């Protein structure tokens, strides 16, 4: 199970890096979304993945009898998903506004804050 997850995480990260290397802002964001999900899966895998082994301690005992899945990373993922959702939603809205204001979705052409040459920038009013 872990090996399968590891392969999946690897594939997701590879795809996300490919997308993030694109100059198109939306592809970049999709890459970020994939990366964020890959990281969540990574956290999940770090907490041991088992079929149907809830972390329940039998009555009267101090610790569970058999190997169980660790619930803490799952709690961490929940936090990370919520935060990641908020951040990505913000990034999406920002890029929509950015593309509208800058008139391009090509990250290389977005030079409003960093004009290509200083001569050009001193010409501006």
């Amino acid at each position, binding site marked *: 199970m872990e090996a399968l997850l590891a392969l999946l995480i690897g594939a997701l990260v590879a795809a996300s890096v490919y997308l993030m290397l694109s100059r198109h802002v939306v592809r970049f964001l999709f890459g970020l979304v994939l990366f964020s999900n890959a990281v969540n899966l990574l956290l999940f895998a770090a907490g041991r993945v088992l079929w149907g082994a809830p972390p329940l301690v039998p009555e009267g005992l101090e610790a569970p009898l058999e190997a169980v899945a660790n619930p803490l990373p799952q709690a961490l993922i929940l936090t990370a998903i919520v935060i990641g959702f908020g951040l990505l939603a913000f990034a999406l809205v920002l890029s929509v506004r950015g593309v509208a204001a800058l008139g391009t979705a090509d990250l290389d052409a977005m030079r409003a804050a960093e004009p290509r040459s200083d001569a050009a*920038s001193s010409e501006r009013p």
Partner: protein
Amino acid sequence: MKAWIVAPIVIPLATATLLVLGFSTPRRQHAVAVAGTFALAVAAVALLLGVEREGILVLQAGGWAAPFGITLVADRLGVAMVMVTAIIGLASVVFAAGEVDESRMRFGFAPLVQVLLAGVCGAFLTGDVFNLYVWFEVMLIASFALLAIGGGREQLDGALKYVALNLISTLMFLSGAGLLYGMAGSLNMADLNQRLPGLGQPGLVAAVAVMFLLAFGIKAALFPVFSWLPASYHTPPVAVSALFAGLLTKVGVYALIRFFTIIFPREQLGLDGVLVVVAALTMVTGVLGAAAQSEFRRILGFHIVSQVGYMVMGLALGSPLALAGAIFYTLHHIIVKSNLFLLSGVSKRLSGSFELSRSGGLYTRAPLVAALFLIPAFSLAGFPPLSGFWSKLLLIQAGIELEQWWVVAVLVIVGLLTVYSMTKIWAEAFWKAHPDGDDAWREPLVGRERALLLAPVIALALITVAIGLWPAPLFEFARAAAADLLDPTAYVTAVLGGGSR
């Protein structure tokens, strides 16, 4: 005393809530923000005195004992960072009252600044890796919004790049945290200090350490992942620039110092050589980038990069003196750099432009501003007897002690090039006549605006001079903080042993 630890987090959050709930007019919002930030400064002083008196303070959130619950720790380094955060927060909030326009205030400028301060203070006070991640996010989302609101094209452009690269950094941080937990079974910093050396997998630990190095390297704007900083820091209002310039990259530096002293067993990692080279390249590229710029805030932005290199160099050299130098440098730099950004705002307000070729004549028109500029500018360049001189001296001394001659050479040469940039600003914005003649002058600063814009600048300049004239107390403090980090026994026992319910 223990309960004071949460004060620097709760006070800004409470202020933010208050600002969201009421106080609709900008003037009232500014007043509440200033009052709230002042309260934060008072709490920071109380916490600082408490740590000096009682040693490391620990608060187990919810009463859950150390490795299981979230631990808040106030040690010397953390509490000193909280103190400068409060100082810079106060300076920026006062400056913002004189600068920020009404539309930005309507979009929630004031509460966002408070949330940012809460995030920064939380990051300095937590003793838990995942909790640090959460504070980073609090800080990030507030900074995203502050960078983007009310902006035109330039601001949106800067914000996009800032957001994109910082999101990659947080994801690296999160995956590092996941792997660390999978490896060690704990995310408590003191607990990790105990567990990692005995893990017997130095290669794996080093790989995870590199993930954190990259994550915090992006945050701190290290070579070669600093490009988001000069792309964005010159776009928002000056009060925001100053706040970011002082605090955000330094949270990255703080996290690097924390992780590569307390958490990771450095002698097992073999990363020191990498850190030294990265720090040196950061210093050199930053200062050369600044030399190529001709816009006030962009020059300063590149200088942040170069100065961060100095701090990381102190960490990379790793001797007690070098680490003390890094801490001293960080504290001095936050004050000086924020002040320079505030001064760039004053200069723009008077001469009409951030572009050096389109400004000038400040020396004759506003001699007070010119004099105030010289203090942080000379301090940044390392002129005695200002604070920058001592911080550079400490690092150079540490380099000589370790016989790292080329590091010493880089430290000295980058200092010289810093003088070059500061001279350029001085010659262009202050000495030369305004290219558009006297008509280009904006109306002079008077009354309320004069007080709001100049008071923070004067206060920060006084702190710089005070550190320069009496460096001993801060140096002793930095040395004690460095000793705490290099021998974390006290930290570990405070968190895991004596600090329980």
